[in-house]
């Protein structure tokens, strides 16, 4: 299959704004904020996100 990326387009692809993983720590921090309120978890493309989030357990005896 021929490459669909033209030679003059490669610099655009190399740009940081085309990298979903440009700020993994920031993504992990944001996921942690969301996860404390929303039960969804996992499947974020970049490393670390939500992996260390502990599930909040409600217990009121």
């Amino acid at each position, binding site marked *: 299959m021929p490459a669909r990326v033209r030679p003059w387009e490669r610099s655009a692809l190399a740009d940081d704004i085309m990298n979903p993983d440009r700020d993994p720590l920031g993504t992990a921090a944001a996921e942690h904020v969301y996860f404390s309120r929303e*039960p969804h978890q996992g499947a974020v493309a970049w490393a670390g996100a939500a992996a260390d989030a502990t599930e909040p357990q409600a217990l009121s005896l």
Partner: protein
Amino acid sequence: MEKSVEILPNVFLDESFGENSPNTRQRESLYASLNHSFVGVHGAIEGAYRFYADSYGIVAHTLQVSWLQHLGANVILTPSFRYYTQTAARFYYYNLDETSIIPVRIPIGTAPYYTSDFRLSAEDAASYGLKIAWKASNYLQLDASYERYAMQGRDGVTPASAYPTAGISTVGVKFLW
């Protein structure tokens, strides 16, 4: 978890019980993200979608859209919008008054299950934010962001006060060597 209990004939008392959730929970999620560059304006759009489902009966969708804009050679400005929506767990009740469930004092992890944890109710959350990242030198990158987050319930029973709104501030420093 609250239930009105008849302690004497025709005498009712609101009592609190612990939540009783299943001992195991199976989670499934799928994530897809797409970036598209707009070279002429030195920007890019990023869209991300996540599907989530679990054995509690929750199905959730998350959609996030960001615009990444270069300002000069060293600054990237990123406005973004995020929307999250989920259905309730099948054993979510605001209270047990209208149910035949007899709650137990100590959660036992077997049916019947019940919870009044708002995080397991039908809810939506919308947020929008702005992030600025500055490449100060070849060795140092700084970023700051602010996001406004608001969640609301959809079941018409759980009070609005159960759902949080938040202002989320983040500051990042990255050293490269």
